[in-house]
């Protein structure tokens, strides 16, 4: 949402009488006139609902967000925002696979633990424009019942070759902390207890709760190029180095007869990805093709490919509608096994690490969705004195996951589906 704070706009708000009009104009001219054309406020809001029906989770996540950008001068921008995740559902607390289930047919090795959490993130930052270059920096702070996040970022963006080429580089650092179960002295990973719940996390004097650190260093560079009046591409390369506790503290894995332990991931992980995106405008039908392909590789031996295609079309000047599809496929982590207690390959132990995380298993997914956006803008003047325009958007996506190895107690998941509903919009003052 864009809010234009010109002297004229302010004057319109306060026009009630000749006396008020004169006063308002005088104040506006004195305080805002020098940089009136540069003063812009953008406000965006978006709300997403995620629902995952099967896998015993019935996970429901509501994500509201609000972003505000103020440009008091042509060279300075200030941003602030808030986002949250309201989470309810269940997660797999104990993971075993078909080999263990075959020998323990009566055992409920998939214990679904109830989950209720609230993630809240506040962020702020600023940008400085000097010539063709924009420098940005920002900070965000996030809290969950069992997690604290501090993230800093800096970016620099410049254009060249008559604005047809744009380069951007960025660096971010996360200093995060996760709550964990306090383990006894000399406890090996195969004997570690999982965290029962988040009670007592980040409080003093709770001997059964401890804090584990995670640091993330992220670098990114991108090159955006306008090739023709209707074709623009963007190439992005990113790398992340993660150091610290990366397991789910709540999840246990059955390793053998009478042996259950908190899942144990490596502390170090380096990941890199390359993304190529293209937008192509088809003038005769006023439509745009958005295409992207992304390749990913990391030191846990996960490789993935993501391909996205969207067709967006104007209906009149205000309404746009889009159809989109996405294909994703990844390999599993080198230490992933659906059952560490035994069985034929690919089951069985995989070295010193073990996990019950289906996101580390080999799988693919297909997403299909629709999207519509409406922007209302008067040709002359503003709506209600200050409202320059209004916009609203709605989207719906369905995701079908296909897991190659991951099972729930040896039973394959054939109906792993998720639905994502999005609403966005606001007023342009």
């Amino acid at each position, binding site marked *: 949402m864009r809010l234009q704070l010109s002297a004229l706009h302010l004057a319109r708000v306060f026009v009630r009488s000749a006396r008020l009009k004169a006063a308002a104009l005088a104040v506006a001219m004195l305080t805002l006139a020098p940089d009136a054309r540069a003063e812009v406020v953008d406000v965006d809001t978006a709300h*997403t609902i995620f629902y995952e029906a099967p896998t015993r989770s019935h996970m429901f996540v509501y994500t509201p967000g609000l972003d505000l950008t103020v440009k008091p001068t042509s060279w300075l921008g200030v941003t602030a925002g808030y986002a949250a995740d309201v989470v309810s559902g269940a997660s797999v607390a104990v993971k075993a696979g078909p080999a263990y289930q075959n020998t323990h047919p009566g055992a409920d090795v998939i214990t679904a633990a109830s989950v209720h959490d609230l993630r809240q993130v506040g962020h702020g930052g600023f940008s400085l424009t000097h010539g063709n270059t924009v420098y940005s920096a920002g900070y*965000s702070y996030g809290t969950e019942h069992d997690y604290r996040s501090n993230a800093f970022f800096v970016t620099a963006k410049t254009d060249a070759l008559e604005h047809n080429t744009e380069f951007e580089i960025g660096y971010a650092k996360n200093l*995060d902390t996760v709550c964990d179960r306090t383990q006894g002295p000399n406890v090996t990973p195969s004997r570690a207890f999982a965290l029962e719940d988040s009670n007592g996390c980040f409080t003093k004097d709770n001997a059964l709760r401890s804090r584990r650190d995670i640091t993330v260093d992220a670098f990114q560079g991108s090159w955006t190029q306008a090739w023709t009046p*209707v074709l623009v591409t963007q190439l992005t390369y990113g790398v992340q180095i993660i150091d610290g506790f990366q397991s789910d503290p709540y999840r246990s894995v059955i390793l053998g007869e009478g042996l259950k332990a908190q899942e144990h991931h490596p502390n170090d992980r380096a990941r890199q990805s390359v993304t190529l995106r293209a937008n192509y405008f088809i003038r005769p039908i006023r439509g745009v093709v958005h295409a992207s392909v992304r390749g990913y590789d990391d030191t846990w031996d996960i490789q993935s490919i993501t391909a996205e295609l969207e067709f967006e079309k104007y209906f009149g000047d205000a309404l746009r509608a889009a159809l989109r599809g996405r294909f994703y496929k990844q390999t599993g982590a080198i230490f992933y096994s659906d059952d560490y207690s035994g069985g034929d390959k690919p089951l069985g132990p995989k070295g010193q690490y073990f996990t019950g995380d289906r996101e580390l298993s080999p799988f693919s997914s297909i997403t299909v969705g629709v999207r519509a956006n409406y922007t209302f803008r008067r040709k002359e003047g503003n709506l209600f004195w200050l409202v320059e325009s209004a916009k609203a*958007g709605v989207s719906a996506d369905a995701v079908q996951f296909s897991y190659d190895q991951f099972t729930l107690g040896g039973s394959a998941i054939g109906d792993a589906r998720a639905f994502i509903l999005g609403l966005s919009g606001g007023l342009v003052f």
Partner: protein
Amino acid sequence: MATPARHSLSRSRSLALSVLALISVAFLGGCVTVRPEQRSVLADPTMRFDGEELAQSQKKHALDNREGSTGGGGVSGGGCGCN
């Protein structure tokens, strides 16, 4: 048979050539100049890669938390809220 040192040299040379090719292609973009009066379509909201940024980031956040290969798409923080 390639020794490890020769293999490493070969990889370094390949990487250097790739970077050189990328830079060359980047500056070739300068040969394909889109004049200011031709940029009306490029300025359209549909042609921006950061359009509808907040809504797109929320959708990406929802999908990323169900996949094992997040990262490299931007700088972010604040945990996942995924459990």
